[in-house]
């Protein structure tokens, strides 16, 4: 089994971080797609799979490029469908079961605000392929933020029931925010060479956007210091929660049953 141990070589760092990002997008996209046919209203039944589709498109581009950098004949399908659980390095937040609509929307807002700023910075990547996909994904993330922010405000400033559910979602998700900004030798190497920005440099911008939205939603985030020093960790090392196995069982079903199956 290939472990997600930290490398020293620059190309390894590039591969590892592209796969982390791709895994975030694939796993969160998969979770969102679970809402298809179950959303509270028809418009949301269109919206969530549409966002999921954007995330999958971004994941495909990231996996493909990672496969080229790795240079071991693994294409996007091999990376997306034919790895073991411990080899997936997504944020733990992304694999959490959807919970209710408030939980799904708040998680998406946290993630999309982060990615919007991350891709904006990524547009000046030293790698032209990364720069190109960042400029495309940035616009898409911006649209996701807009959609999720409207819902978070509507729920937070809505009925007692919707506000209570959002508050509960915030409590459940807060421990996972820390991981968004986590730094290690992989992100440092890539930050130093201008390949991808250090996630920790997104904090101020992320926080400013979230605060603006939370003011309108009548919500309050714990202080930044707490977010950075406390919280769950392990996703980037392939240490997952129990729900990841169930998610992969469904996600990988076809490729595990009929290996190398093509459309």
């Amino acid at each position, binding site marked *: 089994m290939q472990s997600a141990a930290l490398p020293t070589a620059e190309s390894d760092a590039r591969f590892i971080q592209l796969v982390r990002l791709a895994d975030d997008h694939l796993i969160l996209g998969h979770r969102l797609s679970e809402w298809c046919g179950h959303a509270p209203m028809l418009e949301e039944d269109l919206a969530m799979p549409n966002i999921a589709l954007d995330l999958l498109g971004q994941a*495909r581009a990231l996996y493909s490029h990672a496969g080229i950098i790795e240079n071991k004949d693994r294409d996007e399908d091999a990376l997306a469908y034919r790895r073991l659980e411990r080899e997936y390095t997504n944020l733990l937040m992304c694999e959490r079961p959807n919970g209710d609509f408030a939980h799904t929307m708040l998680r998406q807002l946290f993630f999309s605000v982060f990615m919007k700023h991350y891709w904006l910075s990524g547009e000046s990547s030293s790698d032209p392929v990364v720069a190109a996909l960042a400029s495309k994904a940035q616009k898409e993330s911006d*649209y996701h933020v*807009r959609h999720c922010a409207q819902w978070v405000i509507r729920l937070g400033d809505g009925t007692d029931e919707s506000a209570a559910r959002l508050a509960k979602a915030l409590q459940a998700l807060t421990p996972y925010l820390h991981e968004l900004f986590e730094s290690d030798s992989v992100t440092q190497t890539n930050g130093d060479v201008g390949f991808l920005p250090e996630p920790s440099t997104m904090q101020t911008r992320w926080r400013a956007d979230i605060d603006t939205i939370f003011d309108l939603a009548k919500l309050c985030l714990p202080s930044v210091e707490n977010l950075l020093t406390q919280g769950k960790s392990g996703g980037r090392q392939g240490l997952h929660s129990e729900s990841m196995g169930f998610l992969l069982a469904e996600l990988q079903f076809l490729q595990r049953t009929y290996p190398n199956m093509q459309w």
Partner: protein
Amino acid sequence: MSTHTIKKNACVVSMAETQHRQRAWEIAAAVPDPEIPSLTIEDLGILRRIEITSNGVVVAHISPTYSACPAVMAIEEAVEQALTAAGYRTEIKRVISPAWTTDWITDMGRKKLKDYGIAPPDKASPSARALFSDPVVACPRCDSTRTEKVSEFGSTACKAHYKCEACNEPFDYFKCL
């Protein structure tokens, strides 16, 4: 072989290449968008350029509208078929940089969208969008600006759903990107 002949041949080749490039462009440009068939890929601005390589292969450069636009593979196949049918050895190149923007939809494309019942996007694509500023969208049927957004996401990745308060018709709006 005299210098004169070489020059003459070179000239003939380059003339032919220009003509071929023009012809290949016209063939590729006429391919319709599978999701909005009244529009061609030229109208949408996703056919970026035609290149003819030194060994005579026609390379069509195509930009997807969205990262995961499900139509992009169908479009690439259709372009390849059209060019192959016209006798060209063909290659498709997917170009994601610079990123496609709705600003590349031609004026003809905008008119066709409206005639088809889809409100065309704002001309200036947003750089840093204000969080909740919505564009003023005119109804493609009655031109009233008394319209209301029903859903940020519509029947395809590139459209939002609106309704007109004046004529009561629902309609799609091509999102500004």
